[in-house]
């Protein structure tokens, strides 16, 4: 099918974009990479009267590591961030998660910020933003403001963004030294939305686990961070037993059944994925400690 007719706006600056969004209100949608929005338009699940195409807005295609965070502008394509050596060195979790987002061809056009704004419970990047304690930078008629991740995601496909606000960037804070991270997921086919996924971060100090946390994909409505440190505190990193941590994961997630998998299957799957992710993240933390020493 084809999209319903719309008026196409091509602002050149953030101010122009926000002005147009303010005038068209609820009848308008931001068009970034279009890799989520255009399928929705093609299937006529949405018929906005105005599209505010931000692809010509100057200054939004930035990818930088500074101030203790990876900062990606609203036009930074997923593939570019994934391939950035600077990002890979600073926050390998982000690059690893991106390899699970759709296919490379989709990532050539899709943006990181668009993925956050779309807020699909099956998307990888919201889980990474949550685990790193990130921030979404927004510009609206009242000027610039920032949403900490806990305030940004409101529900499945729902964020705190008002119709006249543009997300201009997201910041993913770097994790402390001595931290190992893993992103892993299980999908019917590589590149499909995951049945379940886990982002895990384990920190070690003097050889023992000092912190272990995880966030999840496809098993919670909004990205949630679970701290399992108490279940492993004081254990030696490479030998730590993660059963107690896995039990906590089992109890906290709240998956739904659909045609791809039952809720029970997703719960079992994410529990096992988390157990492995914690163990692998601990190994990576040990390795990181060794190479830093």
């Amino acid at each position, binding site marked *: 099918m084809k999209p*319903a007719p*719309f008026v196409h706006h091509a602002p050149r600056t953030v101010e122009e974009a926000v002005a147009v969004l303010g005038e068209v209100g609820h009848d308008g949608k931001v068009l970034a990479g*279009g890799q989520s929005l255009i399928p929705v338009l093609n299937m006529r699940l949405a018929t906005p009267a105005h*599209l505010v195409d931000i692809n010509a807005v100057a200054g939004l295609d930035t990818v930088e590591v500074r101030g203790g965070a990876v900062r990606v502008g609203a036009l930074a394509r997923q*593939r570019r961030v994934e391939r950035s050596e600077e990002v890979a060195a600073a926050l390998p979790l982000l690059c690893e998660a991106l390899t699970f987002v759709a296919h490379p061809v989709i990532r050539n056009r899709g943006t990181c910020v668009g993925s956050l704004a779309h807020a699909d419970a099956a998307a990888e990047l919201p889980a990474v933003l949550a685990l790193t304690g990130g921030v979404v930078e927004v510009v609206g008629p009242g000027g610039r403001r920032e949403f900490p991740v806990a305030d940004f995601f409101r529900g499945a496909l729902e964020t705190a963004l008002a119709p006249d606000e543009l997300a201009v960037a997201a910041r993913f804070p770097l994790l402390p030294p001595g931290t190992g991270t893993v992103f892993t997921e299980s999908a019917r086919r590589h590149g499909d939305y995951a049945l379940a996924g886990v982002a895990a971060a384990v920190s070690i100090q003097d050889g023992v686990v000092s912190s272990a946390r995880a966030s999840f994909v496809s098993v919670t409505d909004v990205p949630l961070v679970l701290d399992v440190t108490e279940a492993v505190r004081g254990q030696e990193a490479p030998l730590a037993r993660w059963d107690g941590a896995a039990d906590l994961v089992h109890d906290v997630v709240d998956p739904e059944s659909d045609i791809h998998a039952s809720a029970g299957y997703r719960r079992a799957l994410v529990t096992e994925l988390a157990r492995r992710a914690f163990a692998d993240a601990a190994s990576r933390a040990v390795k990181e400690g060794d190479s830093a020493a």
Partner: protein
Amino acid sequence: MLPDTTGGGRVEVTVHVNGVPHSATVEPRRLLSDFLRHDLGLTGTHVGCEHGVCGACTVLVDGEPMRSCLMFAVSAQHHQVTTVEGLAGADGGLGPEQRAFVECHGLQCGFCTPGFLTTVTAFLRDNPQPSAEEAREAISGNLCRCTGYQNIVRSVLRAAEIRAGRAADCAGPPAGQPTAPPAGEAVG
């Protein structure tokens, strides 16, 4: 004044396709795939699903593969688009990827082929000597309902050889694949 590029009506769009500027007056909702096929008559780009899943519509935009069903023609203005029609060799004959697909039976009905060819062309430019595993991953976003993919993986590896000027053939299984079914598995 609103920076409205369309006034809600039709717009003149110019896109460089295979090195030649093409213009047409279209609605802003015109997908790049339909612009290529219906407005420019370049029907080599195929359309399967129109939601990004099948890969048949993949074209190169400034050299990078993208879904033409998930882009509007207005968004392709001022960009260089390469379709399967633009993949011919310098002499006007088949390009290396096209030759490899012919040699290795990388197509049957051919519906999926333009999307594979554009995707593989960009992949081999970035990774001229891929392993079978890398070749498999490179085509994982393209669906083929005929071939079963084995010959497409062979075609990708063969195209790499042709590009490198190496003579070989596409007989035998792709490197890294078992040559016989695992013991105990029924055959036929």
